[in-house]
């Protein structure tokens, strides 16, 4: 039985094993490769997407569990906040290898939606599930603060 959901604003239907983790449906079936695989166990955050607006580790949620949900990946993250986050990331040249950054950006957008002016402690709380082996943490923190300032206007 096909699973129907909304992906980056479009209604889609996937006729694959509903036990398949959402991550692999996004990457292999939908061909949206911005969302990354790092651990497959909810421990690194590389696969972070938004499910009905909340950050979710797409490697640990089965396709069958998101029937009818609205999924946003890094490719589909748009709007003022998403653009401000991306701009801040580029302004501070946060990325290094870049592999974790889709997940970092999705987690940061979700944090700023909830908490427009996060403290360092808020950032640590919201972002400590997202590993960056290149160690871009100092800049991630700075970019989140910068976004908060620019969004404020």
């Amino acid at each position, binding site marked *: 039985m096909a699973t129907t959901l909304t992906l980056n604003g*479009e209604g889609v239907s996937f006729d694959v094993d509903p036990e398949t983790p959402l991550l692999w449906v996004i990457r*292999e079936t*939908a061909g949206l*490769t911005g969302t990354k695989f790092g651990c497959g*166990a909810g421990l690194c955050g590389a696969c972070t997407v938004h499910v009905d607006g909340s950050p979710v580790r797409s490697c640990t949620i089965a396709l069958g569990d998101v029937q009818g949900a609205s999924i946003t990946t890094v490719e589909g993250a748009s709007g003022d906040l998403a653009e401000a986050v*991306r701009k801040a990331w580029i302004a501070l040249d946060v990325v*290094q*290898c870049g592999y974790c950054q889709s997940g970092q950006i999705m987690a940061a957008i979700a944090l700023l939606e909830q908490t427009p002016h996060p403290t360092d402690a808020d950032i640590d*709380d919201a972002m400590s599930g997202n590993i960056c082996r290149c160690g871009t943490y100092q800049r991630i923190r700075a970019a989140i603060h910068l976004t908060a300032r620019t969004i404020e206007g």
Partner: protein
Amino acid sequence: MEKSREVESRITRRSVLKGAAFASAGLVIGFSLPQRSFSNSQSVQETFGPNAFLRVARDNSVTIISKHVEHGMGIFTGLATVIAEELDADWSQVKAEPAPADADLFKNLAFGIQSTGGSNSMQNSFLQYRRAGATARAMLVEAAAARWRVASAEISIDKGIVMHEASGRTASFGELVDQAAALPVPEDVPLKDPSRFRLIGRDDGTVKRLDSPAKTNGTALYGIDVKLPGMLVAVVAHPSRFGSTVRSFDDSETRQIPGIVDVVEIPTGVAVLAESFWAALKGREKLRVDWDETAAEKRGTDEIISNHRALLDQPGNVARRDGDVETALARAAKTVTADYSFPILAHAPLEPVACVARLSSDSCEVWSGDANVTPLQMKIAATLGFRPDQVEIHAVFAGGHFGRRNETALEAVEIVKAINGRAPVKLQWTREEELQNSVYMPMYLHRATAGLDDNGNLIAYSHRIVGKSLLLDSPEFAAQFVVNGTDFTSVVGLATTSYDIPNILVESHNAVVAMPAATWRSNYNKTYAIETFLDQVARAAGRDPYELRRSLLARDPREKKIDVLSVPEPVKDHIFAEHPRELRVLELAAQRAGWGEAMGPGRGRGIALAYAYSTPVAQVAEVTVADDGKIKVDRIVCAIDCGVAVNPDVIRAQMEGSIAFTLGSALHSEITMTGGAVDQSNFHDFQVMRIDEMPKVEVHIVPSAAPPTGAGEPGGVPVAAAVANAVFAATGRMYQSLPFGTV
């Protein structure tokens, strides 16, 4: 579905290279490299490529070809900066893409093969890429002079606009492409005077990383993202014990899983091929493999430690000898001794191994972020019975390297060979394999002994290291870097110490462990040992650690008589930093950190120095130790002298990143084994640094006009020692066994 897009649409033989750099490469048209042409080569006249390192297109874009793989260190941006500088290009017209495999054109000048590592990407390319840019500039000037019938000396270039001031004529690079391409390539073109640099060293935000946009919108292409038509996904059942081989396997249940296409034996295990990763993974779960463990490593970490410890009591290969340590120690008024142990470490780049191979009857292509391009190409050719030029390697962005992503595509080639090339194959590793079946930074044990005279002067220093050699398993590197049994990577930083101690003895043992070894970003254990030992010596002598180091650095180390120094010939002459570059970074770090200022209770400050990858770097760490013994690293002040700072902000980023990488490992990371099998399986039990532990990092770059030296790894070399010394200052307890845990 509509959004679905085959990556294939942008993976043609040419465009994958561009795709890897930027999704939209614009109007850049194929050009011919001197010895190899791309398949869809179009009119050469439409672009101008005076050498292998750049081409200028009619659309005005300047594309630099990076011989180094972009692992995140910013080398695309760095090499583009160097060429744009000499070319007087505008930064906005510059792009970068990776080079194909061609050792003649693209070898690392320090290694003699095409390979990225050792923090020498900028170091070995700086002059080469400057020359490439200057040559292209001279030809554009010549072309303009011919067009306007004026002397070339009257022509200037500013931000990509070629000008003849007297007549007011101007031309873009694109307009001059055809004429420039028709000119002979000049030799020995003079380089720009560094006083006129306007991109190199620029720190006002003009020179941004070229890969930031693609890495923030999901379009950057990594090995895991490559998709070819008809491609199968393979996961491999690897043995849990290193050195095991396949005796037999039963795939009857595996083959019943929908989506499974084939199951094949390869030298490293059994590969399950499927239409999707998930099917392949489920198929692997059902696979039963009978492993022949005759030659396998069956020892646990404890047994390996005891074996190393036994060697620690015996004299080893002499890496360095100055004077007579034994006699001096016998005469010493006071001796200090300390043993250190460093755990096995996995590199754990965030992208698990993922690469693609495609095989035809007379050619093989791979897509990977592997660093050792030439050895990979040679080994693939040998595996397939091909000539190296039948093997094409498409470098894609690597999701981290850190010493691990060297020749990973070889396994993908074994799989595609086992199915006779009937479909392209993507090899996909899991995190569990990255921790349990990978290559590792081996375990090391150290013993340090010092002798002090009546006045607290350090008169003797002996240091012995036991660990598996990183290089003996890699003939192409061992030939150069293992001398008289001494693996340079085991002793560098110790045998090469510039501290002025009258009697020095450094020895090493190459322990035998079946676990495959590979170097590790910053490889800091030697610096950790000597720099923390020095603080223990300082305390025994009643001296300030910073002042002790200053006194040991007063004299130029090259003036000292050294009796034995078993180091590779090519590096012999630059083993030591130019005096007094180390002293300068030490003083800068101490001064910026406020060395000597009072700190509150439970707080401590520690200093450490390294000369690593030809770069002196010093750091001061500030820590707070909580009542429960938990340590928090508050601040790292880092001073570095890496010669000309081509991209100062990229250098700062590399300091921040390498500090995080080392610090995370020193705080938490450890691979252990039971009965030869690795105990850890994922990021819950192999812990790495996360954002909540990231200290505030301040970087101070010493202004310099000297040629650039390493920047990717030096930052991670002294930091663990600086932190340990800070904890020592706060608590009196020195960590001699890593990871730290609590005090």
